[in-house]
């Protein structure tokens, strides 16, 4: 892999962005001696541009791609790389005790701060939010995550490629299949393994089963954010049904252990897939019934429009991915181009009112639930048998996998020395979208923040790793 000098690196990134590539991730490798930036082309191919650090310094690209903000701050905190031109380079993973170093200064008449977390009032993951507020209106939000940082990426270094799957798989339960698949795709691309058609089918079933429970959970979460117990309970019950179906099909409610390198041991006989399709039909009917109730509940609907707005320009600038991007009318979806999964003629959907507000993000979940149920109905048209890969592709020391999780594009990059992992980097949809949540919250009322947050429903575990 070519490693650019400083100037050529910026030029390469600039040229790719001008050619319609989207920023997809950046990380430090070789102990901080090299920084690699990943960019995705409109046709879904990934380009990786590397730059060598000169005395620990590389040029920033945050002026070219705002979405690189968190990535550069993380590379600085974990590997000591300094990004020339990224000012101020605030701590992100590192928890600096000096407030002024990691938040923006509070200025103006009657401005005050509201600090929330790391422990929240409900059953919620740990993270700290610091709101700058005037009256009830949010001026700015600094999200301090990484309370759950377990050092999974460094811990995985040195293990075998097969063993590395454990670290990536346990990064997040809600994205276990998506993260595991991104890792498996990266390893298989590095080893020159091509999936058989049966393998692409088995894995697509698993990925859509994950999206099914996740999106049902997200609809329940928005109802909870409004305080509509009936809607919350209806969709929570459907989430439970979807997880029970996962347990019937794979032996695990969160599909843990189903993604293996190079193959799949998923085995479903004709009777099991027939029963699964019947249950999925029942879930579809109940979803539509619940959705109809929500649509005609005026006090619920009144709470959704015009809050937490993230427009198409914001999406492009901040590099937002997944349902949050599509709800703003930006039809980006990895499933449209992926070759290692079975999505023939897949078309990303956007809502009728792509306003980028809480309502649009909720509408988008329903659209995608229908799409997922259609896909599963088609994919489960016959028995599923254990299958593998064919060793026909070119091998590489560094390769990537890109998968659309329930929260958006998830990139995994694997660097190896033989069968040993020398570096693994996971950039999930949740990681990509946290800055968008903070941006969408500003200029809204503080009591609306839980609802805005729920409309994104991002994982903390995925971001913190």
């Amino acid at each position, binding site marked *: 892999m070519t490693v650019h000098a400083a100037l050529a690196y910026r030029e390469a990134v600039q040229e790719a962005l001008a050619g319609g590539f989207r920023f997809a991730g950046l990380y430090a490798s070789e102990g901080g001696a090299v920084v690699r930036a990943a960019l995705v082309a409109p046709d879904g191919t990934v380009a990786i541009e590397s730059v060598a650090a000169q005395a620990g310094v590389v040029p920033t690209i945050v002026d070219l791609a705002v979405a690189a903000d968190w990535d550069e701050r993380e590379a600085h905190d974990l590997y000591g790389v300094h990004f020339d031109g990224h000012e101020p380079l605030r701590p992100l993973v590192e928890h600096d005790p000096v407030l002024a170093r990691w938040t923006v200064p509070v200025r103006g008449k009657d401005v005050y701060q509201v600090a929330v977390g*790391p*422990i929240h009032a409900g059953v919620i993951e740990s993270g700290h939010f610091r709101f700058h507020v005037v009256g009830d209106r949010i001026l700015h939000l600094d999200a301090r995550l990484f309370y759950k940082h377990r050092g999974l990426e460094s811990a995985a270094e040195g293990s075998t490629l097969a063993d590395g799957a454990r670290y990536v798989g346990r990064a997040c*339960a809600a994205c276990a299949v998506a993260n595991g698949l991104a890792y498996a795709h990266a390893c298989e691309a590095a080893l020159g393994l091509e999936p058989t058609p049966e393998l692409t089918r088995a894995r697509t079933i698993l990925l859509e089963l994950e999206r099914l429970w996740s999106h049902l959970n997200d609809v329940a979460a928005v109802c909870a954010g409004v305080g509509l117990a009936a809607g919350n309970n*209806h969709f929570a019950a459907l989430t439970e049904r979807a997880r029970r179906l996962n347990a019937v099909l794979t032996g695990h409610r969160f599909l843990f252990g189903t993604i293996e390198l190079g193959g799949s041991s998923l085995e479903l006989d004709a009777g099991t897939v027939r029963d699964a399709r019947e249950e999925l039909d029942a879930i579809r009917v109940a979803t539509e019934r619940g959705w109809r109730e929500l649509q005609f509940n005026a006090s619920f609907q009144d709470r959704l429009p015009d809050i937490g707005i993230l427009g198409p320009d914001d999406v492009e600038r901040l590099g937002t991915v997944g349902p949050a991007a599509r709800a703003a009318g930006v039809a980006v979806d990895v499933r449209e181009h992926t070759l290692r999964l079975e999505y023939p003629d897949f078309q990303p959907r956007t809502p009728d009112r792509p306003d980028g507000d809480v309502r649009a993000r909720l509408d988008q979940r329903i659209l995608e639930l229908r799409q997922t149920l259609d896909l599963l109905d088609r994919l489960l048209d016959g028995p599923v048998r254990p299958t593998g890969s064919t060793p026909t592709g070119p091998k590489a020391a560094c390769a990537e996998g890109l998968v659309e999780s329930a929260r958006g594009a998830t990139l995994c990059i694997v660097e190896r020395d033989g069968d040993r992992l020398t570096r693994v980097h996971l950039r999930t949809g949740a990681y990509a979208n946290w800055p968008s949540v903070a941006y969408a919250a500003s200029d809204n009322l503080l009591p609306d923040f839980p609802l805005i947050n729920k409309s994104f429903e991002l994982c903390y575990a995925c971001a913190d790793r």
Partner: protein
Amino acid sequence: MLTLLRDLRRLRRAGALPRPDHGRSLAIRHVDVGSCNGCEHELTLASSPYYDLQRFGLGVVASPRHADLLLVTGPVTTRMRDPLLTAYEAMPEPRLVAALGDCALGCHLLGTPDALVGSVDTVLPVDLRIPGCPPTPDAIATALLELVDRTSR
């Protein structure tokens, strides 16, 4: 909306958990100290119509100040050790601690030594251990109900 509510009540009655009796209550404060979010998702569903822990007098409360039980998920990360202790110290006596899930119990922990402190019982005295990766809502509900019966005897 009323028909939805009637159907949800039916789901609850169809469950395998025992019928609620009177005189039980447990105020639970949940603290995530570094989980993968699996235990949180299952704990959330323990309050869903299929299990409905509230009908047994068990509920998640917003503050440790009025909690009987600290329900801890995940391996304790170095960053969450102090917030966990702060929450515990804010609880009134008598107080209980439950470790929820294999990570909280210290099984197969993944991470670097400088990022992880270890299992919950290296930081706090643990009264109840609920194994599983993650434990199902059914297992969570059953374990919590047994704890209430054991401690109120």
